[in-house]
């Protein structure tokens, strides 16, 4: 047997693994700037995968392009550093084809909400069993500080010298309307919550979208460092049921507005544990095999249909 079926274990039987397993033996020098929020994502992801009992070979991390895209360089697992905006289509196909893998996609706000916006909406709509982490720093960092889809109106940059006339995109609302079944926002400055939310997102069977506020100390100096932050589940000031779509929608709208007024609200904003994932829906339609398709190629007893047996329609 050259291929071991993975991730077949019941999650409850998993024991936490060493999070250091996700740190390369000789850690590559991360190329992020000192004080960058991206370090927070890396740490939270390692912690979540360790808590959940995964080993590096069970995880496929697909990233886009930008500072965020380098996450796969510093996280030890199967990795795919893809192209700008296209992490989601690569990730969701890998999950469909090799369903034993735990698949996580990650990218920046320009990557996910700008150039990859179409894929974001459709992956949410289809509710693929993939976790999607969007590093949201409200700026294009690696290209040196241009206005991004989440930059606030009036944001001045080299490409918007008079200030942006565009209202920022509403990532949480967009995700909800798209069809995501788990939507949360966390911040690099809140490591405990970040790890908890990533853990929940990975456990969730369906499309789990985490808008991860990652401060950019180099190109977005004017922006908040996302402190102080409020965890809406911990605060008495916010009372909404994040399992209720309407209440979630209202809350998300407020949260998105609040960010640009200086209030950083984080937490879980929507969770529908009952919506079947795309894989489950497709299986119910008889459109995906019961076991991981990738395993079939390693099964010497597998039967392969041939076209010769389909020819009656042509006779």
């Amino acid at each position, binding site marked *: *047997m*050259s*291929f*071991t*079926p993975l991730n077949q274990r019941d999650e409850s039987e998993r024991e936490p693994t060493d999070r250091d397993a996700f740190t*390369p*033996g*000789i850690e*590559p020098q991360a190329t992020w700037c000192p004080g960058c929020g991206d370090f927070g994502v890396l740490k939270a992801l390692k912690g979540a995968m360790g808590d959940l009992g995964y080993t*590096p*070979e*069970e995880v*496929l991390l*697909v990233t886009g*392009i930008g500072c965020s895209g*380098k996450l*796969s*360089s510093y996280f*030890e*697992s*199967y*990795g*795919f*550093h*893809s*192209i700008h905006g*296209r992490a989601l*289509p*690569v*990730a*969701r*196909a*890998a*999950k*469909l*084809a*090799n369903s*034993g*893998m735990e698949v996580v996609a990650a990218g920046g706000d320009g990557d996910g909400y700008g150039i990859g916006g*179409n*894929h974001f909406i*459709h992956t949410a709509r289809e509710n693929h069993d993939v976790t999607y982490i969007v590093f949201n720093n409200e700026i294009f960092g690696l290209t040196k500080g241009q206005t991004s889809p989440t930059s606030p109106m009036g944001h001045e940059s080299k490409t918007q010298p008079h200030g942006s006339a565009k209202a920022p995109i509403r990532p949480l609302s967009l995700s909800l309307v798209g069809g995501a079944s788990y939507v949360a926002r966390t911040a690099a400055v809140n490591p405990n919550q970040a790890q908890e939310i990533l853990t929940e997102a990975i456990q969730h069977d369906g499309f789990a979208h985490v808008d991860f506020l990652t401060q950019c100390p180099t190109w977005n100096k004017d922006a908040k460092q996302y402190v102080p932050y409020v965890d809406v589940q911990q605060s008495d000031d916010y009372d909404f049921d994040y399992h209720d779509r309407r209440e979630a929608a209202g809350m998300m709208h407020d949260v998105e507005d609040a960010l640009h007024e200086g209030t950083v609200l984080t937490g879980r904003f929507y969770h529908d544990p009952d919506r079947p994932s795309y894989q489950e829906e*497709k299986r119910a339609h*008889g*459109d*995906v*095999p019961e076991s991981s*398709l*990738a395993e*079939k*190629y390693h099964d010497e007893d597998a039967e*392969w*249909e*041939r*076209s*010769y047996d*389909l*020819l009656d329609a*042509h*006779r």
Partner: protein
Amino acid sequence: MTGEIVWRIAGGSGDGIDSTSQNFAKALMRSGLHVFTHRHYPSRIRGGHTYVEVRADDEPVRARGDGFNFLLALGDSFARNTEENAYYGNEQAKPLAENLDDLRDGGVIVYDEGLLDPSDIENFEARAEEHDWHVYPMDLRGLARDQGREVMRNTAGVGATCALLDYPLEPITELMRDRMSGDVLEANIRILDLAAEQVEEFDWTHDLRMPEGSHDEDQVLVSGSNGIAYGAIDEGCRFVAGYPMTPWTEVFTLLSQYLPDMGGIAEQVEDEIAAAALALGASHAGVKSLSGSSGGGFALMSEPLGLAEITETPLVLVEATRAGPSTGMPTKTEQGDLEHVLYTSQGDSCRVVFAPGNQQEAYEQTRLAFELAYDFHLPAIVVYDQKLSGELRNVDAEVFDREPAPDLGTTLTEEELAEAAHYATGTFERYQHDPRGAPDGVSPRSIPGQADGRYLASGNEHHPTGHISEDPDNRVAQMDRRLRKLEAIRERLDERESNQVRHGAADATVGVLTYGSNQGTVHEAVDRLVADGHDVASLSVSDLAPFPEREVREFLDSVERCLVVEMNASGQFRGLVQRELGACGDILHSLLKYNGEPFEPREVVEGVEGLDGGDPATAGTRYVPAGSD
């Protein structure tokens, strides 16, 4: 082409012209004839000038014919403006009016007088007399309406056709019984019989009769799209992702219908960027995958295509070319995407490209594309066109009687991975500079999930573990290794039966060079020329990348002049030959066609005959003499 029948059924889009013609072709095949179909249809759902030709003979037929000799003109149920000066002309009259120019002398016309009036057509009677056409007006619509439903007029037309050609009705009724039942079946059979009887009332003046033939081998009627889909299935492809676009939709539809029932996965997604990225993601994850599109959609695949090249992810793409640029003519054929397919995406190309010449080659070269993609870790593209996509032809069933080959290519087992080279981080060295000392440059891959196999696939230039590297020496080593794979592929292709087909006189002085779907047309033209005493031979090329330099050079060295036949306006294939072989001197002449219609054999014949002087181009073609580019 003595006794052949080229039957053209014409009407409106949405009137069942296509399915009627397919059944007629199949009936002819079952009764022992060789058949070949040619489709012409507009880019609309309902209405508009549509026809299908079924060419039938007792000898193998390899192409559409020169014009046709039997017209069945049905009405267009959805004809728009009937004014003569309307933007699209008088659509009501088109099934008759638009089909007269290519009707051969001595031909037969059956038209539905319930829907068509020859007085709408200028000089109809005079033209019929001049060309010795034999005209049989029949109220096909009325007959269908009286006995069943109006849409059954196609059946009435087929009944009349059979009777006039002295062809038995049994093969037709047999097919109807396979597909229909109850009242619908009975009504159709009644209409078929009555139409055949009505024909007896005419005073027959025509000589045409359906030839008689027989097959020694089990025959199947297949299109190029069938060949591609079946090739993919037999090579173990179980994942397809796509977005609808004519004519790629045919392969996409076939695989979407077959794969889920075979335990595979079919995904219709938001756009073609996603489609190719999904196929790439599934392939990376260990499932043999295919995506594809036509010109505009393929343009969107440029990014994932380049990603497959640098990450060395096996990927099979198909490109069903239609007339461009941009939306161009969506339902018309062209070979204008050759350069697009060869060079699209940034950086130096590292891909395999095949252009199959017929249905059987579509099957075989799709299989070969999978074999090479998975053995050598690169994208392999099958480029074909609207013409090959939809042309139906009878093929020996045993062509498909082969073993499946689901092997994943150059991968390692977990046992091998445990012994393989790893970096100090514990990461598998997926991209070794000098893998196993192997001259082919192929560094074996692992499949996500395998123990000891983790690595990073990156669109950035990378270190042997896949990590980003901009080190100059590493860059050159990786680039050279990737390109070395193409040389190894050329060697493998040269060791097996060639995909280039030479046809014609042994000691030819005049050559015809073509590629892809023109093969059958060129072969027919060469046979006629040789029969007329010309010393002509052709070479039909399928390997576009890596290019079969030696074979093409030997062919060009063996002739004094050569006509390059291709369906585009700028001679892209001629340009490729010159790029690959060097200047070639003043021997390459071009015969181009880009009006949306495939070549007829006579156009190639006239092109070759014209090389001796004058402009050999006919109405639909353009001649570009040697040295003019």
